[in-house]
């Protein structure tokens, strides 16, 4: 049964190549090792961002100053935002599970450009250190918000330059990963694996890669312009010199709206693997999911204006952006219907990844529906820049990408580490985390509607109740996170050895031993006419 490389004991975790020890990891071009490097780096950054979030929530426990001054609060939400967006959710699923699983899922030995892949990780790390340098050196941490809006971004006295440059480098890393995946999917599918037989996770990586490629350069050059503005005063965004700060916002959101689809598409892809596996049923509407993926990828470019309804734009433009925002919600809704329909009459095997997937669908729906409140012109004017927005994007970005990340983690864990985690602790972790999440962010909708602004370290007494609940939620969520992580780390080292295919899935990565051999497949797999990623009897 076992593959030959597993017999002589070398899987991708244990083999030794040119270098020993740590060097064998940070210089490895093996896509699986790179995936793990990303996993550890991103987990570290997530924990950092989480601590900053906890600090902010602690500050908001009571009106007035609790633990930090206004300026510290400004720096905290800025750095929290930069870390969570550029270092966690944007690379998130593609860099970790894309790297680990994409070649396995398409029956390839590696990605198309393994060295470039390693370079991407190095760039990621460089970007991280650049941003951290902004915190440790110079005249104080950046305080502009993660959006770096002009003109404040070149007027502030804080150390913005390394942060902006770091974000640029992170963008470059993201572009290279996208490019690599596109070529991989085009060129390296194994014989018989037609486009219409690709697992949906692969399809969403494909859509994501296009967005990474087409949107990121625009924000890259925009950040360069901000840097040049700061250093040389070229005037492009500086109203004092004739420039237009609103133009900055346009250029920023032309990337940053599509970026939310970089975050969410692969999440949807992971969910589309998990749902059919645990329902033991063919995914409902395979082609509809592909079509909606590509629709999201392209319509997603045309809606950026909804971030600027109150910033000054013509009525015509507002109507247009609002309408398109409603239209782009449709493909997401289609996916939700597909997942639910897949479950219908399935023989559902309720396991940890399934809990995560189901809760993903719930928080994703709440996030999406609250997004429509922001996409509608009249209501957006009311809740713009309030806690409602914070509730919305945490539901969709953290709820969406975060929950899917944990779902994927618990789904592919036995494949990645060759061991099974303790299922009851995993379930407890999920439960605590989810309760914390709901308690943390749900009050923000209410607070926002009542008028509590975002990005303030202080608030009026009337908002106290909701904030207490929210802060309490942040503690529960952090507890859940610790339970999950401890359980996974313990299990990766001491868990029961896992079977090849513990969930009885049909995709290719489950046909190799766990953990996979160094070169993935001993023989190149061939997909027959009747095989398919979701062909459960």
């Amino acid at each position, binding site marked *: 049964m076992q593959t030959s490389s597993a017999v002589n004991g070398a899987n991708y975790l244990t083999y030794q*190549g040119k270098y020993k020890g740590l060097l064998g990891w940070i210089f490895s071009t093996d896509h699986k090792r790179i995936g793990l490097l990303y996993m550890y780096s991103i987990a570290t950054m997530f924990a950092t961002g989480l601590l900053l979030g906890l600090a902010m929530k602690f500050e908001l426990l009571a009106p007035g100053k609790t633990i930090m001054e206004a300026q510290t609060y400004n720096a905290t939400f800025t750095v929290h935002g930069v870390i969570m967006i550029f270092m966690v959710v944007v690379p998130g699923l593609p860099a970790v599970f894309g790297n680990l699983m994409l070649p396995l899922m398409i029956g390839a030995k590696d990605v198309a450009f393994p060295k470039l892949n390693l370079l991407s990780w190095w760039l990621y790390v460089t970007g991280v250190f650049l941003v951290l340098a902004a915190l440790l050196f110079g005249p104080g941490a950046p305080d502009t918000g993660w959006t770096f809006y002009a003109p404040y971004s070149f007027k502030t006295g804080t150390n913005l330059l390394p942060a902006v440059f770091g974000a640029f480098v992170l963008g470059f890393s993201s572009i290279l990963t996208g490019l690599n995946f596109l070529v991989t999917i085009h060129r390296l599918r194994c014989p018989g694996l037609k486009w219409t037989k690709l697992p949906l996770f692969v399809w969403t990586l494909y859509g994501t890669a296009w967005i990474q490629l087409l949107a990121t*350069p625009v924000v890259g050059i925009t950040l360069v312009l901000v840097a040049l503005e700061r250093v040389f*005063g*070229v005037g492009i965004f500086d109203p004092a010199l*004739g420039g237009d700060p609103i133009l900055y916002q346009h250029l920023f959101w032309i990337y940053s709206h599509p970026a939310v689809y970089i975050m969410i598409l692969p999440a949807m892809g992971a969910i589309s693997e998990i749902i059919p596996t645990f329902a033991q049923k063919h995914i409902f509407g395979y082609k509809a999911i592909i079509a909606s993926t590509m629709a999201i990828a392209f319509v997603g470019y045309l809606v950026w204006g909804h971030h600027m309804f109150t910033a000054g734009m013509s009525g015509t433009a507002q109507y247009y952006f609002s309408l398109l925002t409603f239209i782009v919600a449709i493909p997401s809704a289609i996916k939700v219907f597909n997942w639910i329909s897949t479950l219908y009459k399935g023989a559902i095997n309720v396991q940890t990844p399934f809990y995560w997937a189901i809760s993903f669908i719930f928080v994703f729906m709440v996030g999406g529906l609250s997004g429509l409140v922001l996409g509608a012109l009249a209501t957006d004017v009311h809740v713009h820049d309030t806690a409602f927005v914070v509730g919305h994007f945490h539901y969709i970005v953290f709820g969406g990408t975060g929950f899917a990340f944990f779902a994927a983690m618990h789904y592919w864990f036995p494949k990645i580490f060759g061991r099974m985690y303790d299922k009851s602790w995993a379930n407890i972790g999920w439960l605590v985390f989810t309760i914390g999440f709901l308690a943390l962010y749900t009050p923000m909708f209410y607070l926002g509607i009542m008028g509590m602004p975002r990005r303030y370290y202080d608030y009026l007494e009337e908002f106290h109740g909701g904030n207490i609940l929210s802060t309490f939620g942040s503690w529960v969520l952090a507890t859940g996170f610790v339970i999950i992580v401890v359980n996974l780390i313990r299990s990766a080292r001491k868990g029961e050895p896992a079977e090849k295919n513990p969930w009885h899935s049909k995709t290719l990565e489950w046909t190799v031993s766990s953990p996979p051999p160094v070169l993935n497949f001993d023989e190149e797999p061939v997909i027959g006419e009747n095989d398919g990623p979701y062909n459960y009897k």
Partner: protein
Amino acid sequence: MEHAHHVEHPDMYDEESSKIGMWLFIFTELLLFGALFVVYAVYRYMNPDAFHLAAEELNRMIGAINTIILLISSMTIAMSTTALRKGHRKLAIALVSITFLIGLAFLVNKYFEWGVKFSHGIWPGSEHMLNEMSQGEILFFGLYFVMTGLHALHIIIGMAIMVFAIRGLINGKVQIDRPSLLDNCGLYWHLVDLIWIFLFPLFYLIH
């Protein structure tokens, strides 16, 4: 471990992949400059007179020379890929080297051109600009320096790739049946050329 050797490096060389990869990368470069062209279009539309006035300052002669230079260099690099295809490795090396030198000539020209601007007190944030120029002119020169500067940076990158290509040609990593590096070097250089073909009229010629 004895099989560690063949394990480390599955040789993934695939000409088609390299080509697709390069085209995709070129796509991102176009978007990078594309955003700048949009900014240029917006500000030109808002300040037509000032842009006209400021463009008078630029030296069309140098611009034209640089345009011709780059067009020739595109030809030499294209010739080098053909030479390699026909198996004339030495010729290919010579042609890439010539292209490299032409790139250098472009940069020298650029250096003098910018130098003249500086000596007239024109650079972003200079006293002269802030006190005596209209906002439209400031924007024009701001864009001029950013866009030609970024383009010059691309010239340098292109030349760096040429160094790698030459090295590959010398040590055999780039061969008649492994031409990707040189091909991609050429593609990239054409891109750099093409961007200039747009920059030249936008800054120097349009009135």
